[in-house]
C-alpha cells in the first residue's frame, strides 16, 4: 500500500465552495460556481455527479483536476458498447484457479489420508475453506478497485452514454450504495466512498434510475470572460492581446451555423498553435491557415470560409 494521505484539507469534506474554486484554480481548472457547488454537495452527500455538455467543455478534465486537487488516485473507466461487468467490476483469475485445482489434486491424497469412509473424507474436505472462489483469485477491475482504495479515490466513468442499457442498471448498485455484490463471495462495501464522476455526451438519454441517483451538472460553453481566464490558466505565456482576440473570434464563430461548435479544448489547442507560430495578433491569413484546429468538419469549414475576414475584423476591433 502506498501511503498517499490526502495532502489538502479537501479530503475531509470541509472545503467550502470558495475553497473548491480556489483549489481547482491552483491546478489550472477554472470552475464556475455551479461546478464547485456540485462537487461540494457530492462530497457532503456522497453522491455521484453526472456531467453533461458538448464534447470538449472539460467534463473529463474536471474529474482529472478534482483528483489532483484532492490528492487522490484517479481511476478511470472508459465506457463502450459491449462493456460488461467482467471488464468493469471484477474477473476471476482463471489461470490461477486452474493451477489451484491442480495443486489440490496433488494434495488430495495427503489431506485425506487417515480417513476411513467416504463420509469422513467429505467431512474433512468441507473443513477446509473454499478457496476456489475467494478474494485471492479476484482480479479487480476499475469499479472494484475504486471501492477498495483505502483513502478514497476519484472514479471517472467516462462516456457512460456509450455503454449498454444493462450495464447502466448494473452501475446503480455501485453508485447508490458504493458496494458491489459478487455472487460467490458476498457484498463488498467501499472503505471510503469514492468521488464519482460520470460523463455523458448525450448519445442516448440516460435512464431515470441512474439520473435519480446522481447529481446533474450541465457544463455549457463558456462566455468570453470565463474563456479568457481558462485560456490564461492553460496557456500561461500567451500574449494578452492575442488571447483577447482569439477568444473573441471563437465566441463569434459559435454564433455561426455549424455542425460542431469549437469548444474549450479547441480554443486552447488553437491558442497553443498560435503561440508556436509566434503570432502577436490575429489576421485573416493566419486564421485561414490554422482554422482546421478549430473546425473539424469540411462542411463547417466551407460554411465559414466566406465570413472569415468579417469575423476576424470584428474580433480584432476590440
Amino acid at each position, binding site marked *: 500500500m502506498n501511503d498517499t494521505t490526502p495532502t489538502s484539507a479537501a479530503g475531509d469534506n470541509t472545503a467550502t465552495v470558495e475553497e473548491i474554486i480556489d483549489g481547482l484554480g491552483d491546478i489550472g481548472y477554472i470552475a464556475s*460556481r*455551479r461546478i464547485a*457547488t456540485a462537487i461540494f*454537495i457530492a462530497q457532503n452527500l456522497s453522491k455521484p455527479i453526472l456531467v*453533461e455538455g458538448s464534447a470538449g467543455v472539460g467534463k473529463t478534465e474536471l474529474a482529472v483536476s478534482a483528483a489532483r486537487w484532492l490528492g487522490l488516485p484517479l481511476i478511470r473507466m472508459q465506457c463502450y458498447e459491449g462493456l460488461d461487468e467482467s471488464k468493469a467490476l471484477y474477473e476471476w483469475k482463471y489461470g490461477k484457479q486452474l493451477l489451484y485445482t491442480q495443486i489440490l489434486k496433488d494434495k488430495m491424497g495427503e489431506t485425506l489420508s487417515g480417513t476411513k469412509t467416504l463420509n469422513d473424507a467429505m467431512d474433512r474436505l468441507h473443513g477446509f475453506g473454499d478457496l476456489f472462489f475467494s478474494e485471492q483469485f479476484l482480479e479487480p477491475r476499475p469499479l472494484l478497485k475504486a471501492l477498495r482504495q483505502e483513502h478514497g479515490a476519484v472514479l471517472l466513468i467516462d462516456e457512460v452514454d456509450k455503454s*449498454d442499457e444493462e450495464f447502466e442498471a448494473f452501475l446503480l448498485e455501485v453508485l447508490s450504495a458504493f458496494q458491489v455484490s459478487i455472487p460467490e463471495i458476498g457484498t463488498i462495501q467501499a472503505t471510503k466512498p469514492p468521488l464519482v464522476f460520470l460523463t455523458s455526451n448525450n448519445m*442516448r438519454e440516460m435512464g431515470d434510475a441512474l439520473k*435519480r441517483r*446522481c447529481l*446533474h451538472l450541465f457544463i455549457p460553453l463558456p462566455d468570453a470572460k470565463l474563456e479568457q481566464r481558462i485560456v490564461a490558466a492553460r496557456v500561461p505565456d500567451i500574449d494578452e492581446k492575442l488571447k483577447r482576440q482569439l477568444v473573441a473570434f471563437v465566441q463569434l464563430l459559435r454564433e455561426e451555423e455549424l455542425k460542431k461548435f469549437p469548444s474549450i479544448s479547441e480554443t486552447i489547442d488553437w491558442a497553443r498553435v498560435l503561440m508556436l507560430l509566434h503570432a502577436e495578433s490575429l489576421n485573416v491569413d493566419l486564421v485561414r491557415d490554422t482554422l482546421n484546429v478549430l473546425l473539424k468538419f469540411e462542411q463547417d469549414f466551407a460554411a465559414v470560409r466566406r465570413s472569415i475576414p468579417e469575423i476576424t475584423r470584428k474580433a480584432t476591433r476590440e
Partner: protein
Amino acid sequence: MQQILEQFFHALRSADVNVTPAEAIDAHRTLETVGYGDRQLMRDALCVALAKTEGETERFERCFDAFFSRDEFDVPPSLDDADDDLLADQPLAQLVLHGTENDLAHAMEQAAAEAGVTNIRYMTQRGLMVRRILDGMGLREMQGRMFELRQSDAPGAAATAAALEQARDYLFDQARQFISRQFELYARPASAKLHEEILEERALSVVERRDFETMHRIVKRLAKRLATRYNRRRKHTKRGVLDVRRTLRRNMAHDGIPFETVWKQTKIERPKIVVICDVSQSVAATARFLLMFLYSLNEVIATLKSYAFSASLSDISEILEEKSVEDAIPDILEKIGFRPTDYGQALADFDDEHADTVDRHTTVIILGDGRTNNTDPRLDLMRGLHNRAKAVIWLNPEPETFWGSGDSEMHRYRTFCHVAKTCNTILDLERIIDDVLKSYY
C-alpha cells in the same frame, strides 16, 4: 421552510421538472448542508440536485427565479384622510394604512395558501381566486364598513369611506397581479401540457394550422422515444451463454482445459421497412402528418425506404435523409402531393422500379385511404407484394366503417394485407409502429 419547499416542488413539477420523492429528500439534505443564507449557493445546489437534463436545468433556473422572488407589491397608497379611530377594528384596513408592502405580501401569501392558489389550472379561474384571497384577508368586512361610513354623518366618515375605496382598488390590483404571477408559475406550463395531450389524441385530419408546430414537437418526441427504445436493442447481439461446443474445440490445444471461452451469440435481424405513403388530394389533411412521422421514423430506422405517390410513385428517401423536416415536407408535397390518386399506377411504378427492395425480410407499410378514383386497383400487384414481403401493413386514416364506401377499394386491398388498421391520431401511429418494430426484436 418545509412547506415552502413543498410548494417550490409543486411549481417545479408544473414547469415540467420532474421531482420524485427521493429527489425531494435529496433536496432537503442538500439544503441542510448548504443552508439558506447564500441565495446563489442555494440555487446552484438545488439545481444540481433536482434538474436532471439540460432542458430541466434551464426550466429550473427560470422557476427558481420566479418562485423565490418576493412578489413585487406596489407601495400602499397613503391614506391620510382616513380616520384611524373609525377603522380600529378592521385588520385589513389597518394593514393597508400602516403596513409596508412586505406585510401585505405576507398576508396575501397566507390567504393564497388557504385559498389553494397552487391548484390553479385555467385562465378562467383567476377571477374566482382573486375573490377568494381578498375574502380571506377580510375584504368583505372592510367593504361593509365602507358602506356604513358612506351612510353615516359622523365627522370624517365620508373621507374615510373614500380612503377605504382607494384601499379596496389597490388591494384588487395587487391581488390580480399576484394571481397572474401564480398562474404563470403553476398553471401555464401545465395547461400547455394539457393542450399537447389533447393534440396527441385528436384526429390528424382536424388538426388546425396553428397547432402544426406543437404537433411537430410531439411527433419528434414520439420518434425519439421509439429511437431510444429500439436503437438500444439492435446492439445487443453479444449477450448469451457459453457455447460449449466451440469452447471445447478452441481449447483442444490446452488439453481441453477451457482457457479461452466462446460465448453464444444471438443475431438480430435488422428491420427492413418500406413505407409507401399516399399524399394525394383525398388524404391531403393527414398527408402532412404522415410525412412528418415518416421523417421521424427515418431517423429511427437505419434501413428505411420511403416512397410517396399521388398518381406516379417517387422515391423520397433521399429528401427525408438530407433536408430538415421544415423543408422536406413542403418539398415533397409540392412535387407529388395533392393530385388525384391512382393506386394502380403507384403499385405498377413500385413493381417496375423498386420491386427489388422487397424480399421476405421486408415489412411494407402503406399509409393511405385506399380511394382509387375508380381506376384499376391492380390487385394482382398487391397480391405479389403480399406474397413476397414478410408483412404488409396498411394504415388507413379513415375509420373502418368508411372502408369500401364510394371509390374506396380498402376491402379488396385488405385481403392482401397482414394487418389493416385505422390510424387516425398520433398515438395510433406510435402504437402501430411500435408493434411493427417490436416484432423484429
